[in-house]
């Protein structure tokens, strides 16, 4: 009975993961294909990687995308943390519902709507106050902050909701000012959540096509825009090479994160054990005494 269930579970998981990973594996395999026809195998070759590294348009776009993503993710973490803190710790206040709505709506809002509305805002602002002048990196960064900070807010808010607030209260009782409590107690505890929020914001910004296409001006094409205009015309092997590099970076990052969390867990377990042992010792010595 139980065995049958285990077999069924194994089948479901195998099929599910095959569906999720076969497309990614196929991208990688065909990036080493000599033939230009992506799906006809013409022998092993790394020439598409060379071609990718000589493609100035792609390199420039990648550089712009990395800059935008780094700046946008950093600012999104700052704003998202503030919003998460307000929602998780400040209790009910007038306008809380609106703020909470404003932070979750971007998560599900279709990108075409967000992109169009931001562009129209930038055009209107330029007419009214002369800023931002034209469209380019600034407008892309502002837009990316806006849609990625929602994700940071959710992460920070749920981390704070899980967190035991007695530490913060203790610090407050000992006379620490609220900002001191935040920087000395809250921030170090939620730091891993901020890190994953930053990485998520960075990835989403690096990947965004639709919103960026609306708010980017001429001459500021990001990597997804270049990729989209290329793959619209069909498959091209240098894009496979690019995808492979990206997958490699993500895999290495996941591995490092995995090892890091496992080690942290081990340290925590050891500390807990030591504390327990010390406690035991103390109780015993008290008994003897």
């Amino acid at each position, binding site marked *: 009975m139980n065995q049958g269930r285990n077999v069924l*579970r194994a089948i*479901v998981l195998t099929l599910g993961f095959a*569906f999720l990973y076969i497309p*990614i594996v196929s991208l990688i395999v065909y990036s080493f294909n000599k033939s230009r026809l992506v799906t006809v195998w013409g022998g092993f070759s790394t020439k598409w990687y060379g071609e990718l590294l000589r493609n100035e348009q792609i390199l420039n776009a990648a550089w712009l995308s990395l800059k935008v993503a780094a700046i946008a993710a950093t600012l999104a973490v700052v704003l998202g943390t503030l919003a998460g803190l307000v929602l998780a710790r400040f209790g009910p206040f007038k306008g809380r519902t609106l703020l909470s709505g404003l932070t979750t709506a971007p998560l599900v809002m279709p990108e075409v709507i967000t992109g169009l509305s931001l562009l129209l805002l930038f055009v209107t602002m330029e007419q009214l106050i002369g800023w931002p002048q034209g469209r380019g990196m600034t407008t892309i960064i502002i837009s990316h902050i806006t849609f990625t*900070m929602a994700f940071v807010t959710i992460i920070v808010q749920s981390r704070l909701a899980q967190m035991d607030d007695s530490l913060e209260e203790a610090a407050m009782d000992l006379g620490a000012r609220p900002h001191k409590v935040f920087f000395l107690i809250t921030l170090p505890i939620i730091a891993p959540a901020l890190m994953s929020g930053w990485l998520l914001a960075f990835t989403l910004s690096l990947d965004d096509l639709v919103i960026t296409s609306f708010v980017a001006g001429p001459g500021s094409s990001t990597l997804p825009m270049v990729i989209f205009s290329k793959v619209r015309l069909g498959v091209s092997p240098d894009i496979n090479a690019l995808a492979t590099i990206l997958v490699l970076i993500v895999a290495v990052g996941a591995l490092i994160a995995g090892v890091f969390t496992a080690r942290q867990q081990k340290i925590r377990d050891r500390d807990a054990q030591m504390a327990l042992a010390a406690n035991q010792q103390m109780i015993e010595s008290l008994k003897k005494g």
Partner: protein
Amino acid sequence: MDRVLRLLPRGRALVTAVPYVWLLLFFLIPFAIVLKISFSSTLIAMPPYEPLLHWTAEKVVQIKLNFGNYAFLVEDNLYWMAYLNSIKVAAISTLLCLLIGYPIAYSIARSNPSTRNILMLLIVLPFWTSFLLRVYAWIGILKNNGLLNNFLMWIGVIDQPIQMLQTDFAVYVGIVYSYLPFMILPLYANLEKMDLTLLEAAADLGCRPWQAFYKVTLPLSVPGIIAGCLLVFIPAVGEFVIPSLLGDPGMLMIGKVLWTEFFNNRDWPVASAVAIALLLFLVIPIMYYQRAQDAEAGGGVHR
């Protein structure tokens, strides 16, 4: 100067004001502008629309509202078809995501606690690689001389390639593939924290396993199902990238229509009207999702 400084918000108020003002300015106000421009007329200029407010010679403000864009949306079948088709495609994709995602989430939630985290990491991992490139991968799989057709011909199921790319089928595959993690995550979160003693109780009372699933597990997982479905359905309605890369060029999806009006026809007012109409349709599911999300996040109001 001191007096001005004192007027500035401090402490709590400042912490609240910074993200609040940002979101009001860059998320809420833009919708008001879209609404405004949806009532203006097209001009061949930059920006390509007529202002709504006119200062006439007598210093009187004249407001010109043009309902033509909305009338246009109602009269032209193209838009209706696009809306209905988008809803149909999003609904079917959501259902497929649920049917595929539920068994996966269930299997993971009932695995060993030690393997659960690794399996969930593997579910989320593709999400960290580019969405655009993952959709692109399906072009290579679905095209006429692609992987799937070659495989099917090799095992002898078909003798000549079937057209899969540029069909509705390809769009469903693309949406299900891209949004599956969004379905699995809330479902898993729900199923994982379920009290398993309830199932034991059901078994003790004579329930067969599938009966216990149908009568206990499934009803208890409804919040997860709703969250997952909304997380897939709402963005899928406005999806642009997947239908334009995998679908038939003539396939009507509202996201594509908005894109074409804006970039190809440069008709900003009509594009705005399309966006407002889409938003009106989605506002209820979005608010519903937001409520569920806020309740899930602990609300924080307990303090």
